[in-house]
């Protein structure tokens, strides 16, 4: 009896494994990674939004010449990142895309990265074509507007993406994220680690 149960459990495990591999090829249709956009990183390399598919990823938008909100966004996200246990943190990735592709060249992004001591192996600061920037903002629900002085006013929303690019949680308050957001972040990171090691 016990052996039959073990056999069934074995079959169930195989089924789950098969389902996962199928799902990995075909994104869920509400996955943010459905948006296929080219990114140019702080290292001046070409990348894509789904570069870190399989990892939990924090995604938000900013611009480099921003005086107050964007440094706050970067610092708060770093604090959030540092507050996680090392094993959890190892899996987490961060993507920040600029509202300002005209001015935020790879050089500007690299300077910003070094100024903030950003972990370039796990963080991507990126620029994209203006049309793609507007689309990403629409996907993330971020309203923004270019100002006459060349700056941008924008909503600040950080989205936590699961391994398949689904939005698991969002926060509009990076310096004091809601407990639900922090809990979702810890949970996804832990779940991921239990499943496999990348």
């Amino acid at each position: 009896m016990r052996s039959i149960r073990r056999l069934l459990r074995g079959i169930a495990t195989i089924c789950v494994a098969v389902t996962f591999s199928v799902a990995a090829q075909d994104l869920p249709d509400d996955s943010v990674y459905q948006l296929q956009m080219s990114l140019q990183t702080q290292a001046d390399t070409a990348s894509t939004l789904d570069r870190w598919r399989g990892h939990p990823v924090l995604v938000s938008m900013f611009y480099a010449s921003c005086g107050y909100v964007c440094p706050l966004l970067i610092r708060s996200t770093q604090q959030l990142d540092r507050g996680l246990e090392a094993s959890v943190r190892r899996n987490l990735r961060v993507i920040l895309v600029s509202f300002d592709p005209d001015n935020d060249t790879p050089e500007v992004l690299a300077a910003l990265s070094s100024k903030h001591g950003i972990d370039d192996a796990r963080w991507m600061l990126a620029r994209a074509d203006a049309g793609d920037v507007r689309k990403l903002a629409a996907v993330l629900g971020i309203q923004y507007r270019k100002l006459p002085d060349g700056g941008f006013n924008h909503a600040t929303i950080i989205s936590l993406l699961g391994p398949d690019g689904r939005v698991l949680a969002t926060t509009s308050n990076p310096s004091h994220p809601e407990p639900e957001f922090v809990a979702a972040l810890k949970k996804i990171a832990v779940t991921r680690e239990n499943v496999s090691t990348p």
Partner: protein
Amino acid sequence: MRGVSIVLAAGLLALGVGSPAATDGYVAIGGGTFRSVLPAGPGIEQVEIARYRLATTPVTNAQFLAFVRQHPQWRRDRVARLFADESYLKAWAGPVSPGPAAPADAPVVQVSWFAASAYCESIDARLPTWYEWEYAAAADETRADARSDPAFRARMLSWYARTADTPAEVGQGPANAYGVHDLHALVWEWVSDFNALMVSTDSRDQGEDPDLLKFCGAGAITMQDKENYAVLMRIAMLSSLQGAYTTANLGFRCARDGEEP
């Protein structure tokens, strides 16, 4: 799945399904400054508008059908939920058959901003910006800017007060001074920067509290011309949308840069 889509698209192209661009007419508009309901910034009443070309009519069901046939990833049974909600093209009889509820020459509605953007890109066009839409829509049949005329405002409002029913065919309403039809009396229309309209234009607002930007109030306070209810309602409506939303009276038209190519 994507492989199948490509094969289907190739097959349809081989069958000679026409480009939706073929029947789109555009007129050249603008170039200069304009007093928008939404000022460019605090104390900046005039906005600059580069010369552009605007489609004279909204996109029709027939045109959108040709698009979804060529780009099957935009069929309602295949579209990614990220880009269009559950009611996307819902009034159509089937994924590639508009049917009696969506006449060929009526404006396509229940389309998301992502789908509208993709349609315009497919014909080397784009959605108009809010300023471009507002600029063209300021005209009546004879004047480029009729907005100060109470009779013009009353006419606009009378349409917005009507209850929605199945839209009539495009191009039946009178052409405005630029030769553009149906800006007011047929359907609401997407603009490229729908998610920028209610964001405050005052850079001082970004300093104190980032949470402020979540609220519509900051943008609303800076609006000029508060008597122009019809246009203000449109801005409020567009600002309330997400890119994947679709509604039964929201369609779109395309625009292009500059003069005739």
